[in-house]
């Protein structure tokens, strides 16, 4: 007999239909956004789409697998620099550079995960914290300066519009980011909703029991680390195109913190949480920094703590509570549902 386990966040058919509808509407809006908004808004939305990829990567690691990383700015930097080197130094096009960035960041994430997987909880956070702080210095290192150009940083041209499409480069980059994001969200969703996702959560919640069930905890954790770094690296690569410039000091500890803020506020251990989180970290600092330089971080910090206390499942938790209520309401009205 097949046993279906109730998963946290598993919902009934009605609210699932609601979710599918929401995704459809979101995609439709995103598809037509370039015709509705000006260049600055498009740049903003591009950034959010890119951030969503990075957040999904961190969420797979931290939310689903329970490994706390506050060093993902390092993998973002790896992706960005890979693209910069491949396009500016080797002169290759974006469709070579992006897979290269994905591969390089996967390998580096996997290698960093090898020693780090032996560390639990706060100690892993510590190791990744040190990685985040050391990364800008590593990028300035003399031996790799011929490729990274040290503190000067490197400029990157935006991808050229192919096939004479009637759109400008900004909008082409937007569609490219959107395409990559949709693909990576589809893969990520299948990963965490499938057996691998179950194994990840088992390792997070009951490591001993997971090992007894035949899961190779260390290997799974290292692979998860690699996949997570790959997602963040791809985001970094797209981010480098959007900014058209990479420099060591753009990838500080503060970037890692905003990613952490994004997943906690969006909803840790959920796929849609990455989208909510990306909108949050994309919009809030913009408006808050108009008041004062210090405000965004104070606001981030307060939101973070408030979120842990008031809505531990983030915006996703609130949103799914609302949709569940609407769904049950409409079910009653239709008199449907077997009791």
């Amino acid at each position, binding site marked *: 007999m097949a046993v279906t386990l109730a998963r946290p966040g598993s919902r009934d058919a009605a609210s699932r239909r609601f979710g599918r509808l929401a995704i459809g509407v979101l995609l439709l809006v995103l598809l037509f956004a370039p015709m509705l908004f000006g260049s600055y808004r498009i740049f903003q939305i591009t950034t959010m789409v890119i951030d969503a990829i990075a957040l999904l990567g961190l969420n797979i690691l931290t939310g689903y697998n329970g490994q706390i990383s506050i060093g993902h700015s390092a993998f973002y930097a790896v992706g960005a620099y890979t693209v910069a080197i491949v396009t500016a130094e080797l002169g290759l096009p974006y469709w070579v550079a992006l897979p290269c960035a994905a591969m390089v960041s996967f390998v580096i994430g996997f290698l960093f995960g090898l020693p780090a997987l032996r560390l639990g909880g*706060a100690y892993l956070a510590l*190791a990744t914290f*040190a990685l985040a702080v050391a990364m800008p*210095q590593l990028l300035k290192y003399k031996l790799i300066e011929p490729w990274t150009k040290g503190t000067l940083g490197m400029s990157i041209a935006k991808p050229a519009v192919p096939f004479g499409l009637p759109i400008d480069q900004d909008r082409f980059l937007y569609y490219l980011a959107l395409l990559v994001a949709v693909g990576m969200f589809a893969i990520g969703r299948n990963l965490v909703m499938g057996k691998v996702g179950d194994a990840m959560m088992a390792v997070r919640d009951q490591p001993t029991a997971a090992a007894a069930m035949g899961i190779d905890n260390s290997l799974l954790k290292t692979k998860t680390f690699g996949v997570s770094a790959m997602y963040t690296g791809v985001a970094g690569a797209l981010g480098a195109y959007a900014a058209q410039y990479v420099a060591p000091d753009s990838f500080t500890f503060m970037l890692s913190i905003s990613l952490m803020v994004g997943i906690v506020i969006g909803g840790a251990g959920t796929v849609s949480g990455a989208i909510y989180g990306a909108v949050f970290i994309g919009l809030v600092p913009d408006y808050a920094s108009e008041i004062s*330089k210090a405000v965004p971080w*104070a606001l981030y910090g307060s939101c973070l703590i408030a979120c842990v206390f008031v809505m531990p499942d983030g915006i996703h938790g609130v949103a799914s509570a609302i949709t569940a209520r609407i769904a049950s309401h409409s079910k009653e009205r239709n008199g449907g549902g077997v009791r």
Partner: protein
Amino acid sequence: MQGLLHQLATGVSSGGIYASLALALVMIYRSTGHVNFAQGEMAMFSTFIAWSLLDRGVPYWAAFCLTLAVSFVGGVAVERVLIRPMAGRREMLLVTVFLGLFMICNSVAGWIWGYDTRPFESPFESFTFLQNPYETPHDLGAMLVTFVLMLALFGFFQLTRAGLAMRGSTENPVSSRLVGISVDRMSALGWGMAAATGAIAGMMVAPTVFLEPNMMASVLVYGFAGALLGGIDNPWGAVAGGYIVAILENLLGVYVIGTEMRMSVALVLIVGTLVVKPEGLFGQRKLARV
């Protein structure tokens, strides 16, 4: 040879800084079992309070004691309001709260006092007996303070009833409660003492690195490296670790890898220690029953 001695002396003086922050980290760890990411920022905040007092003409040692008292109360308040409700929840949420605290301390300090660097008074400059060719009087004075602090904490944990109760309440909260220890009160006391220890660290660091909201960022990384290397569960181990990290950082930075790579020394030390000898050089190995 003269150059090497000077580098050693520089290493020793920053060692005192790392050691004092490492002590604060040990304090929290011993009393609650947590690794506090906001420790450096809390120390920075305390130092700004001290600066404000000095700025209003309060004499140094009065300001020093007042800052310790304020920090102690602040630490207890943080434990009461933010940390205690987190008991028994996922570690990720706890780390998140520490990060939130980190950001709030940093940005509120920037908000109130601004991001300009400012000099901070050292109490030891006038002490003539501290004059010598290698270290500034402040560095020696700060070393002395760290040493006294280490002895005090070591004595507290090993010789007093409260210290014993605190060790008990982290190692085995249930049994501790059964013998009448208030685990909650121990945790609050630990946070207060850690905040005060951090305040001392901040006031010893500030004359060297100048006071500004981000002054503790790198010190925190080295403090962590020191605490882990020496063993995060014992005060003299953390102090020894702080000195080892500082001396290694200085010698490697000058003679081997170049000064711009210093932060990587901390990274390698942290990851290396956690992988090869997670309990640290002088720490106790922890066993878990499964």
